[in-house]
């Protein structure tokens, strides 16, 4: 999927969506759109590529259907907004696109979109219908991640050295397709889910000492982060190590980076990094680094999420992971990365990371 690479193709494709609906109307048929289903039921784990891929199931979305009409119009409107953006060659954030789509239906108090979730979904559906990724549609997500390390890139004509950007580092844009890697001296990448840990590592100059790139997001990694990680991995063969909290949600962040996500399974090949390795926190880390007294009791939802993840096809056959899941379940608790600081302010930078990387103490 997403073979479309240039603007004219994208424009054509959007127009085709509109013309298809128009033809339905002219021939007196119920206007419809065929939308691939984005749900676990239509996602498969491809053993060969080690990625989540999207199945072939689609749903028809009709205008003259009370349950569909709203989504139908939202999707067409999303296409209209994207076409407008391409025409004037500007970008909008997802939030801005929401406001662009939001309007009140005449003689009513109904808004075409009430919350950003609705416009986001319409845009994701549009990507599938038009075969054009969000980036090609000129719609961007918010910038979320930071990066530092011995890499020099060129972005919109500016040269940016990731090792010379002060305490804040470089923030990863949502669209990284145009970025060129000019010089890559690092040997590997450490990705972490928490900005606090990134700041710790940055202050301790870990990227310099271990000769690596450090990348963070706040929670689930955005598409921009995932894409730039994938590009560094593919184009410069940098191994990727992942640091998350010791809890089911943290581990799922790793799962998304490595195998792809359910809702974006259609673009796994542009985002997933099947060779990514999990660095920690593992159940063994809890034992080895004596973090037991910092464990946080599981809630009902944590148990549920853990069971769900343990049953995903891509984890089912991994002995190492099943062992981790079991250990976590037995502990009935989770722990945060920040707990490592109980061992010393720079413990994570000077002991934990060097030791784990040296011993190649990963889970695949």
């Amino acid at each position: 999927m997403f073979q479309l690479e240039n603007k004219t193709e994208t424009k054509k494709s959007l127009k085709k969506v509109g013309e298809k609906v128009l033809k339905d109307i002219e021939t007196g048929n119920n206007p419809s759109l065929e939308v691939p289903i984005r749900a676990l039921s239509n996602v498969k784990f491809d053993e060969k590529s080690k990625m989540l891929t999207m199945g072939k199931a689609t749903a028809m979305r009709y205008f003259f259907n009370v349950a569909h009409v709203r989504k139908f119009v939202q999707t067409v409107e999303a296409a209209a907004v994207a076409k407008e953006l391409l025409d004037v060659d500007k970008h909008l954030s997802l939030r801005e696109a929401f406001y662009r789509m939001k309007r009140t239906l005449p003689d009513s108090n109904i808004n075409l979109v009430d919350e950003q979730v609705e416009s986001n979904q319409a845009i994701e559906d549009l990507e599938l219908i038009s075969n054009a990724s969000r980036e090609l549609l000129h719609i961007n997500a918010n910038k979320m991640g930071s990066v530092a390390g011995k890499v020099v890139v060129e972005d919109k004509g500016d040269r940016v050295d990731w090792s010379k950007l002060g305490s804040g580092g470089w923030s990863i844009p949502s669209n990284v397709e145009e970025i060129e890697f000019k010089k890559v001296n690092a040997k590997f990448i450490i990705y972490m889910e928490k900005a606090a840990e990134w700041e710790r590592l940055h202050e301790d100059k870990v990227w310099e000492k271990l000769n690596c790139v450090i990348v963070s997001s706040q929670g689930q990694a955005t598409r921009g982060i995932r894409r730039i990680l994938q590009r560094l991995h593919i184009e410069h063969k940098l191994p990727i190590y992942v640091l998350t909290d010791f809890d089911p949600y943290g581990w799922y962040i790793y799962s998304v980076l490595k195998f792809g996500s359910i809702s974006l399974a259609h673009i796994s090949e542009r985002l997933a990094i099947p060779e990514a390795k999990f660095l920690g926190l593992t159940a063994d880390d809890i034992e080895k680094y004596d973090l037991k007294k910092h464990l946080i009791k599981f809630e009902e939802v944590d148990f549920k999420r853990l069971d769900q993840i343990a049953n995903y096809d891509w984890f089912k056959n991994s002995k190492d992971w099943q062992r981790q899941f079991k250990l976590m379940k037995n502990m009935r608790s989770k722990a945060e990365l920040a707990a490592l600081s109980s061992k010393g302010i720079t413990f994570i930078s000077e002991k934990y990371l060097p030791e784990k990387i040296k011993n190649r103490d990963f889970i695949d």
Partner: protein
Amino acid sequence: MANQKTLSAEEMGKAMREVSVAEFFEKNRHLLGYENPTKALVTILKEIVDNSLDACDEAGILPNMKITIKELETKVMYNVGDDLGEVIIQERKPILKIKDRFAKLEETKKTDDKIEYFYSAGGKNYTVTETKVEDEKVYKISSNGQELKLMKVPLGRFRIIGEDNGPGIISKNVTLAFGKLLYGSKFHRLRQSRGTQGIGISGAILYSQLTTGKPAKIVSKTEKEITDVEMRIDVSKNLAQVLSQDITKNKEGKTGLVVEMEAEARYIERGQSVLEFLKQTAIANPHAKITYDGPGGKIVFERATNDLPKQPKEIKPHPYGVEVGILTRLLLTTSSKNLLHFLTNDFSKIGKSSAHEIIKVSKIDSRTKPNSLKHEDIEKLYRAMQTVKIPSPPTDVLSPMGENFLVEGLKKEIEADNFVAVSRPPTVYRGNPFQVEVGLAYGGKLPRDQTAQLIRFANKVPLLYHQSDCATFEAASDVDWKRYGITQSSGSLPQGPILILIHFASVWVPYTSEGKQAIADYPEIIKEIKLAIQDAGRKLSHYIHEQTHLREGQLRKEIFEKYIPELAESLEKLTDENKQKIISELEKIIKKGVSTGKQDRDKKES
């Protein structure tokens, strides 16, 4: 304690004396339904109406009643300097009294929202302003532009007149029926009737007397004579005190009864009010014509049928239904010579063999005189009666409203779109035959966004108070209304444009208290009520589902119409096709009637 005088049993004995029933009720008026002035007025009316309808039904006469409630006066007192000012409202017009002298009305000014009366008294000017606040009139006085302080609003005084075309009461019984509490024809027998205890009308007279001191007036016309009485109740003797009595021949031959009394009360027309009581009475008695002339104007509740309701039959008590107290009273008053006769003659469904078995179990001599039984023996007898197997009492003795009358009654007073009714077959609780009927009204002008209105009847008498203590309420809240397409949060009455009528008919209605406002929740009763509601709910659900379907279709169309210009606008931007053209084409599809959305139901949206 030490310096307190001790009393001997003899001294204490002197203080003991018999308390008359009338005296008891004077002190416990709440038991009779007179705990507040609003309810008092409803109760007085209820007693008058119940008696009239019972008398007409028993005599086989189509009831024609006239009820008059006249507001006599209301006083409002104000502080005027050191003296009192009084606004007395008579015949709906204010009269001003300052320092016990009537002020002179100089001028009246009427505008849309108020009436101003200008008075002069003792060289000063006063203004009385009449405004309306939520249906109630409010009077304020001011002097030279300064508003005076309100002291208190005493109650209004009302004259209540009830007139019927019933058979009347013979002269010698008039003062007994109206002047003695616990006197009446209904307490000593088991027959479905509105009144039961013989307290009602004399209780009303007692209340009238206590609040106004005025005697009651009764005119009774039987076929032969006319009795015209003015009387009070002698509270200590529980007897009528006749002030004047006049008996003449009835030359015209028209029969009927007129009861007139005055009482202090408060008059409202919403909620638990006189008007609501009469409206519900009219629903339950479509064969009655009731003309009501009240402070708010005249209303006629027309007759919806000329058919008389089925006559209820009198039955003897069933052994499973009696309690020790009733059994004791029956034993004392029976005309049977011995226990065996007593059992076979005075009860329903006790034959010779059952009677012998009861006697055997109780180990009492069958030849014992009924009135000579000691208390222990009575208890033994009572227990024996409960253990021996006896067939159920006859159930064809009741007078239900009937499904047709129920629907007619509802139609006449409730503006709704659909009416259904169910009469369950009669059955038995604790030896008493009973029957449940349910009527439902749906749609129309019934409020859509409120909890359903429940109207309850016991032997065709509306029950206005203590709804949440009532078996009908419990049962109606317990039914799963969602099945019939009606919204409900579990465990409460349903929501929406629905009115629920429940009628409980029995030879003996198990009220939770003397106020007779709630039915006790025997499991057999709850079960029957629920079954009746479910039957009715099923009948109604066809209609509701049809309506929902129609409404959904309409709603669908409206939704699409709203989204059409939006789709057209988006498509115009996307394809440069003219917006108006797209709109008109989409509207064509709607007119043609697209199968709106049933297709691909099985293909779920993501």
